[in-house]
């Protein structure tokens, strides 16, 4: 329940700019250090020290948007670099927000 509330708040904070979708072949969950990604194609794990700046979508959903606490021009450089790194690894995909 707590994570649902948190996700709603994050969703509002990140609207307006481009958003990031978790790749179809990837699962991700929250851990104390940040996010833990699992690539179903290789069964490899990626540990990401993101604190609470990134919030995972539900495990199974039609469109899984990664919650970003500060995005676009408001994103700290380190967070932008982290997102670029995750895109480069094929774990998330950048998408234009059509809302």
């Amino acid at each position, binding site marked *: 329940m707590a994570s649902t509330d948190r996700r709603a708040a994050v969703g509002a904070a990140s609207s307006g700019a481009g958003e990031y979708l978790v790749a179809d072949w990837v*699962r991700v*969950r929250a*851990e*104390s250090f940040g996010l833990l990604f*699992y690539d*179903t194609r290789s*069964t490899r794990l990626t540990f990401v*020290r993101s604190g609470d700046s990134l919030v995972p979508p539900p*495990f*199974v959903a039609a469109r899984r948007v990664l919650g970003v606490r500060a995005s676009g021009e408001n994103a700290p450089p380190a967070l932008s670099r982290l997102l670029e790194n995750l895109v480069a690894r094929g774990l998330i995909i950048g998408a234009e927000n059509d809302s």
Partner: protein
Amino acid sequence: MPRTTLSSTPLRAPVNVTWEVTKACNLRCGHCLSAGVGAPGRGELDLAQCRALLDELARMQVFQVNFGGGEPFLRADFLDILGEARLRGITSCVSTNGTVVDEILVEELLRLAPVYLQVSLDGARRKTNDLIRGPGTYDRILAGIETLASHGYPDLSLNMVVTRLNVGEVAEFDQLAKRYGAKTRLSRFRPSGAGCASWEDYRLTRDQLVELADYLGAHPEILTGDSFFALTPAGRRTLGLNMCGAAKMTCAVAPDGSVYPCAFLCDAAFCAGNVTAAPLSAIFGSSPVFARFRQLSVQSCRACDRFSDCHGGCPAVAWFLNKSLDQPDPECLRRVVPAKEVA
């Protein structure tokens, strides 16, 4: 992106769960990690209980279930279980002896894709495999593999438990797997289940351990999971975990729902609870047995220069040989080879 340090951070749920869905098996392998396989066990979880466990695994956001047994495909509702796991977004890996694989089963598995299939074969040669898995099994297993290969099954690996009898065939085994478009997986022989009785006959000699470590070091493409993390050179260990994941990254569920720290420690001394009596999340989070594993530290290894690479190795091997968890892995390279010879 930091990985090695974060991987030792306590997780709120396992990454994967080994689930032995039945004790039923049509083979009697000399090294089987499970004890007493043959007929289905008493009190095995029924399909409704399996669905409830899958619901719990999904709530916990467990990424992967490694299904085993016994022979999981001997369970009449096993394809239903795989389908239910898929619906919940859980990745399935199945360890099978391959003898019941036929055209119909392969088509069903392709419909449920991805299902990572690991077929056990304990030698590149008929004589070697049949000594371990039983007379006539090599041909039956190969028939299953050929059926999978003829359908272009995409997620196939051939697994060999490395013993004194087959260690000389590792390269040949790798070639055989390639011939079928499969990956090679090597697993460590541990003295659990039926392996307790065959330990002295099957365990690797000192020279074989060194040769295997060298081979794995030179062949990073061979899958080993965490089997050899304590035994192999530093370069190889970076491919997987550098510490025992029992009760931290993984845990095991027995056919009757009993929960253990890992599939190699399904011993009454380590039963942490039962999923029919308590949610797996509660067992994983608050079991004293699991808490003990998370605090486990092999003091006698702390001074070793390889401690950060293996943290004392596999506690299951130490337990079954010495009835103590606080013992170094008996097959650690540093224990069998002088320091100057170890990479």
